[in-house]
């Protein structure tokens, strides 16, 4: 599968159909809402979405209101990948035995249902090699239940269970690397994407759907109340996240790393951090060491990716 194939070049190329409808209850300016709209613009045919408990689930499927125009399944919080596995295999069998139409299966899960409680089911599904696209919309905490820390929360961030306290100022642990975990399962395709780069995101979704096997796409989705910034800044913040190397945009195809958005001269990380209330405590002198730890984590991650790409090593 050539990585040069482009499905969409400009916003005009994005399909008009809104498979994810208006009237949902996501916050004004919600990054996950933008992610959902963009992802489901890139479907290529009959599709079913599997969505674990989280912001998107409660906001888009509260009886009697559903924002979905495609078949939608929610079962629980930690089993989206398992439920999707069942749907994938059932459709395959029923297609063979009774001519049921083939459907693409897309999991649309938050970082809560992916990095932590959902990690086992994801690992199992990836290892078993089911033909599904697993998309994680990452707002870096358990936002739906009130902004508690997750394995996707970066070091230093304040959440309601890792508050910026006098003794422990914010989360002290580093963010898990979802793509590294996914790629460790030897899957054909994994990628990160940002809502600030919608054409890249849509192309990755479409490209992934064309690949047979398990695929993972990790999308950064800024959260207005959780990151604490005005609603209009969602896309700007997502862009800054990329431009400061905080959230690198890259793909791993059959183990080979390719950085899609090359950031040669990164903007200072502080520019990204200072716009968010969840990092405000990092600007106090006594927390300078944590700010440094976060900057170090970002730089180390970037260097690692650059070296992986340069070396051409197969992960």
């Amino acid at each position, binding site marked *: 599968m050539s990585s040069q194939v482009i499905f969409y070049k*400009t*916003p*005009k190329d*994005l399909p*008009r159909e*809104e498979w*994810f*409808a*208006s*009237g*949902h*209850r*996501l*916050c*004004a*300016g*919600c*990054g*996950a*809402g*933008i992610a959902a*709209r*963009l992802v489901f613009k890139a479907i290529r045919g009959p599709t079913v979405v599997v969505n674990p408990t989280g912001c998107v689930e409660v906001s*888009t*499927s509260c*009886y*009697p*209101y*559903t*924002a*979905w*125009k*495609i078949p939608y399944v929610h079962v629980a919080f930690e089993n989206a990948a398992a439920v999707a596995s069942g749907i994938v295999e059932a459709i395959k069998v029923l297609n063979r035995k009774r001519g049921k139409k083939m459907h693409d299966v897309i999991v649309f899960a938050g970082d809560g249902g992916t990095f932590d409680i959902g990690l086992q089911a994801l690992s199992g599904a990836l290892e078993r090699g089911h033909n599904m696209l697993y998309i994680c919309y990452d707002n870096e905490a358990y936002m739906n239940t009130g902004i508690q820390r997750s394995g996707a929360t970066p070091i230093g961030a304040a959440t309601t269970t890792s508050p910026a306290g006098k003794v422990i100022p914010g989360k002290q642990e580093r963010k898990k690397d979802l793509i590294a975990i996914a790629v460790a399962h030897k899957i054909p395709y994994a990628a990160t994407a940002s*809502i600030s780069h*919608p054409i890249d995101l849509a192309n990755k979704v479409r490209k992934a759907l064309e690949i047979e096997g398990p695929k993972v796409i990790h999308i950064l989705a800024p959260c*207005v109340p959780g990151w604490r910034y*005005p*609603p*209009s*800044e*969602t*896309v*700007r913040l997502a862009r800054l996240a990329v431009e400061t190397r905080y959230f690198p945009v890259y793909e791993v195809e059959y183990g080979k790393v390719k950085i899609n958005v090359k950031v040669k001269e990164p903007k200072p990380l502080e520019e990204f951090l200072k716009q968010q209330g969840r990092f405000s405590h990092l600007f106090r002198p006594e927390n300078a060491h944590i700010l440094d730890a976060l900057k170090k984590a970002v730089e180390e991650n970037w260097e690692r990716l650059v070296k992986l790409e340069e070396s051409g090593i197969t992960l």
Partner: protein
Amino acid sequence: MSAKKIVEPVVKGEFTYKDLPIAAMIPVPATSLEYKTGTWRTRQPRIDYGKCIKCLLCWTFCPDAAIKRLEDDSVQVDYDYCKGCGVCETVCPVKAISMEEV
């Protein structure tokens, strides 16, 4: 079956267990359109069509699909659903959108 038939009995509180679909499933797509989130906003976008270049970025980025893309690729705010977040104003490359108090 229409979205109204699913939504109205619940909104009015006039139903029995027999009237509801099995297991809380919703057999009609996009019943959320019955709920006008436009009532949420305290600011709303106004598009200056003199400046608009039909780049479609506002349509691309609206979390609520509250900016409609018309046949000729011009855009129109759907005030039924616009929550007034202001993302459209920030992404417009020619500053054709301004958020105003409701």
